[in-house]
């Protein structure tokens, strides 16, 4: 408010001058005529200023709207990139876990499953079938691990967003 007073200091001065004149009973017709002419000039000037300031303000608003739109679009693009990067990172993590699981399953198969199968049958195809089944299970397991990691990451993100809000 204080800034506005200073910004329109000249205009306020003019207004106060003619308010005083209008309240004065000593003003002659000639004084009033001169004042009216001067006041008209100031009014015209003020009208020009209002037009200019309104126009500038509207243009600024339009610029802000355009920038906001562009910013929103960039945000969406950024979010998509972040999501893709997160997914890629989690996929790599899931592949590592699956590899570790595959190594573990190899040892279990060699040390535990093979002796059990061999106790029932000596057919090599049965042993191979068990191993192949375990190997085929690896891909779905990787998918499950990946989904779990993504779910956890989303939960963590949601917690961060909620904490920030």
């Amino acid at each position, binding site marked *: 408010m204080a*800034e506005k007073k200073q*910004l329109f200091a*000249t205009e306020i001065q003019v207004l106060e001058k003619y308010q005083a004149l209008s309240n004065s009973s000593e003003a002659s017709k000639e004084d009033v005529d001169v004042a009216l002419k001067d006041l008209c000039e100031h009014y015209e000037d003020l009208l020009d200023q209002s037009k*200019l*300031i309104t*126009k*500038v303000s509207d243009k*600024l608003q339009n610029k802000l709207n355009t920038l906001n739109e562009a910013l929103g679009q960039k945000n969406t693009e950024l979010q998509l990139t972040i999501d893709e990067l997160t997914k890629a990172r989690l996929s790599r993590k899931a592949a590592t876990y699956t590899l570790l699981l595959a190594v573990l399953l190899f040892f279990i198969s060699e040390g535990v499953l093979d002796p059990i199968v061999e106790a029932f049958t000596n057919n090599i195809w049965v042993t191979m079938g068990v191993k192949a089944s375990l190997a085929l299970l690896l891909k779905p397991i990787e998918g499950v691990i990946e989904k779990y990691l993504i779910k956890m990451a989303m939960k963590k993100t949601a917690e961060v967003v909620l904490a920030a809000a």
Partner: protein
Amino acid sequence: MEKLYIDAKNNIPLIDFDPSSGIMLLKGRSTPENSVEFYDPINKWVLDYIQSPSNETIVKIQFEYFNTSSSKCILDLLKKFADIHKKGGNLKIEWYYEEDDEDMKEAAEDYSDIVKVPFEIIEIPEE
């Protein structure tokens, strides 16, 4: 009379007013926190300058952006320079705008209409 020089910052324009050559340069962005406070010493300097201006005064304006309160302060400043023209002095106002910045071009036309001084509106390539 001493030269008036204010270095440009992110929110204030470059002010380089040289009374000996009569070249007054305003360039950059004008979004000061308090426009009146920023433009007040400039207005005072111009009031002093117009008492005995140079043979030819050239006001070169190249705004990239200005906020609403600055628009009023710029108008007040231009009105003071326009007094040189009204008193029969030699005043030239050059308004530079970057190509495609139609808003700045229109602003120049509006200012020219209000201060009743013809502006030379010059398009320049984008920096």
